[in-house]
């Protein structure tokens, strides 16, 4: 079997690495571009779901900079997504009489998200490891609460009232509707296909940025900090500044997807940005392989495929089996209620079997297996 595989893939492996790379990329891009057509032909009706998946993939790519490259465990990443989405919401909600053009608003969201990345990062990035995780976790909880309470803003100094009961975010109901993009007279509406191409463009942009940054002075500084912060500091890498850049750039990517998501969904409310979302995105990064762009993209897609397709299909199948075999509990089962159980299980298995993720970066693999080698050595000597 292995031999058959070997001989079948022979011509492929005979190609120079560069050509193989171009072919793989070209083919993937081609598939992604014609996907809506394929979907239409086979009547899958999944374009909308795939678009949502890509929103999460863009988020995962942003978090990859923070967690994968710089090694900062951020458990509140959804907060920046929320900030991006709310920026778009506030600037386009008709009741505010601003209704800015979406193409300007999306950049505003990026800038605001990056700004908050710096605001949050400045006091917290002096912390290391676990402490940072706890602080970001708290931040992730605070932001939705703030959004809920900004439905009534009053600012006053003594008797002077600057703002009285100003409705910025419309509280629990959230902002609805949110301005949609339009281009050359074409309006984005309920047809998911244009949205699909837009998020594809954003994803391409974010991947491009990931690649460029990875092989740069900044990318090396991030890696060095992840490896040994003290040594990096002594070699002239400013830890606080470098980490802040990771936070800000990571946050700006979630600003992109936040703006897109708000416009596509047409409604945003605090409930959308709960802790679950941060964890889901983190799972995508870890499952695929921290620090590896391909890993994060494929890992994220697999996780979402599992969530949206495999779980529902298995539910249908299990019910069918239950009905034919007259097993009552099986006939009424709903596996999608178990999604977090399966996620948790998948994480435990991944951590035990392949802690570097499904498609790891070379450096990460080396890091995570170094501990094993060290523990093995004394036994070998003995």
């Amino acid at each position, binding site marked *: 079997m292995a031999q058959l595989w070997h001989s079948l893939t022979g011509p492929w492996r005979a190609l120079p690495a560069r050509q193989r790379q171009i072919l793989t990329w070209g083919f993937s891009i081609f598939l992604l571009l014609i996907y809506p057509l394929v979907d239409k032909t086979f009547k899958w009706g999944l374009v909308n779901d795939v678009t949502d998946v890509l929103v999460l993939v863009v988020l995962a790519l942003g978090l990859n900079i923070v967690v994968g490259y710089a090694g900062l465990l951020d458990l509140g990443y959804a907060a920046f997504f929320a900030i991006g989405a709310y920026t778009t919401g506030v600037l386009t909600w008709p009741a505010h009489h601003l209704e800015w053009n979406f193409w300007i608003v999306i950049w505003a969201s990026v800038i605001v998200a990056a700004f908050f990345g710096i605001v949050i990062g400045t006091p917290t990035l002096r912390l290391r490891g676990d402490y940072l995780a706890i602080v970001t976790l708290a931040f992730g909880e605070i932001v939705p609460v703030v959004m809920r309470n900004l439905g009534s803003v009053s600012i006053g100094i003594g008797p002077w009232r600057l703002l009285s009961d100003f409705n910025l975010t419309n509280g629990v109901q959230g902002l609805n509707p949110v301005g949609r993009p339009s281009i050359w007279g074409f309006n984005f509406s309920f047809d998911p296909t244009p949205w699909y191409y837009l998020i594809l463009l954003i994803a391409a942009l974010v991947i491009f940025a990931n690649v460029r940054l990875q092989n*740069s*002075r900044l990318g090396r500084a991030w890696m*060095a900090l992840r490896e*040994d912060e003290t*040594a990096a500091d002594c070699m*002239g890498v400013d830890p606080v500044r470098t980490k802040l850049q990771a936070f800000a750039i990571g946050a700006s990517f979630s600003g992109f997807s936040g703006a897109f998501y708000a416009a596509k969904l047409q409604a945003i409310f605090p409930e959308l940005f709960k802790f679950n979302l941060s964890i889901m995105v983190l799972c995508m990064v870890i499952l695929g392989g921290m620090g590896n762009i391909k890993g994060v993209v494929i890992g994220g897609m697999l996780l979402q495929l599992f969530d949206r397709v495999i779980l529902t299909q298995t539910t249908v199948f299990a019910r069918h089996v239950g009905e034919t075999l007259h097993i009552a509990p099986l006939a009424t089962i709903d596996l999608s209620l178990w999604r977090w159980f399966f996620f948790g299980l998948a994480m435990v298995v991944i951590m035990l079997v392949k802690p570097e993720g499904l498609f790891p970066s070379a450096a990460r693999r080396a890091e995570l297996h170094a501990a094993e080698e060290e523990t093995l050595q004394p036994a070998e000597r003995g």
Partner: protein
Amino acid sequence: MALLEARGISKKFGGLAAVSALDLDIEKGMIASLIGPNGAGKTTFFNMVSGFYTPTSGQMLLDGKEIGGLRPNRATALGLGRTFQNIRLFSNMTALENVLVGMNCRLKSAWYGALLRLRSVVQEEAKAHERAQELLAYVGLGGKGETLAKNLSYGLQRRLEIARALATNPKLMLLDEPTAGMNPLETTDAMALIKRVRDDLDITILLIEHDMKVVMSISEFITVLDHGAKIAEGTPEQVRANPKVIEAYLGKGVTKIRRAKQKVVAKTESEKDGTA
């Protein structure tokens, strides 16, 4: 003016004075050593120079600029390179990447430059790679650029640490026990490398070392610390002959024993002379 000037530097940890009112001058172009028994305050002093500790009092000047209390990366930017007692390479990065990280504070490209791949950034990166390869070749790691740092042998890892410190373009290089754990052959090579760095690159070197053979043969100036204070300084010959140094290392009785021995030797010799 000396390259590194410590003026009344003290460091207290609670009630313990690890270094007290130390004055030290390291002249430009020198290979200087800092020695002393365990707990004498050598590493504390190193950590104050490189920015890990803020001195409790006193001044630390590098080339006339105050570096006491600066963050390590600021001190590095002002021309201070260092290696570590326990090797601290970025072990899962390649040798070349390690050296490139060392150049970090001498490069200017910012995130937007990297994103847009501006011409200036591309040129800078190309130059940096070229220089990194040169440095690797210089310390004897030519052709090993793509090897992960942790896969290098112990001696080569020490060399890579020196290359990485050289990449920061230092005026003064601090070497914390550069030959610790090396076999005699590796030690000789390391000493030759240190000498070469000073002679070719005009970098002043200050090292902590326990191996007296290394210290005596390589240093031009030695400072001896004991209990956080300077007890002697001078050329290897001066330091070796200083009774205070012998006392600090071997205990008080030793000097007496030595004198007694010398007397005995003198006596027997005179007796020999007498009989002859």
